[in-house]
């Protein structure tokens, strides 16, 4: 462990703002990259299900 306390870990030796904002941006972008294709996949199957139901009714 290179920090003595959790407060020191958060402070990052006065560089906390820089380190945590960088990791914050990185986290948001990675999350976006995971969530958006999964949502697109779900949307596709939902649309296909709706299309199949419509075709079955006709």
């Amino acid at each position, binding site marked *: 462990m290179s920090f003595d306390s959790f407060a020191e870990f958060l402070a990052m030796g006065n*560089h906390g703002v820089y380190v945590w904002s960088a990791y914050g941006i990185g986290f948001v972008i990675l999350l976006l990259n995971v969530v958006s294709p999964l949502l697109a996949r779900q949307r596709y199957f939902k649309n296909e299900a709706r299309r199949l139901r419509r075709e079955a009714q006709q």
Partner: protein
Amino acid sequence: MNWTWFHKLGSPKWFYQISGRWLPWLSVCAALLIMVGLVLGLAFAPPDYQQGNSFRIIYLHVPAAFLAQSTYISLAIAGVVGLVWKMKIADIAIQQAAPIGAWMTVIALATGAIWGKPTWGAWWVWDARLTAMLILLFLYFGIIALGHAISNRDSAAKACAILAIVGVVNIPIIKYSVDWWNTLHQPATFTVTKKPTMPIEMWLPLLIMTIGFYCFFAAVLLVRMRLEVLRRESRTRWAQEEVARQIGRGV
């Protein structure tokens, strides 16, 4: 040499089946490696003797920058495969990998700017490495835009493949920019040929994060490509069966 795997790879159905088997492993590897790398890099690596704790941004910055460049090289390789062997899967790979590569370039540029402020005193300088990375971002934008702008899929695939191949000239410029020009950007942290000059507690998290990012890329790429394969193959029997199976599972 046996080339059947190469021809099989061109078959969307085969790709869909094999990628479904790899996907869970890649996802688990990516999550584990990134988590372990984060903890080691943020909490256990010693602070840099010059930069203090701001250097910890390296564990995000360098893997993203590596991945941004490797993704572009793989676009170019897929471009060659698509042009030479007319494999449709190559175009799917280009279209689906380009947005991920663009996002990785954004991470590299953004974290670089944040790291630059306490280290150089400026968010941005028109330095060779930084400018070349910005050009990489624009190349990604170009490929994405070109892929959407041309409505004929075969023409779009050809145009994107050519842009990917031509743009690869930027990659050695990025790599050697820190050697060719006098720049603020520090030279490479990692080289394949030399032993790392930093202690193991510092470079091991970087290695773990880099491998984690590659697994992350592979997993996300497969999810994106599998959806695109289903869309493009929606007229074939196997794709319709797969869609029916997924709907039945209540996805």
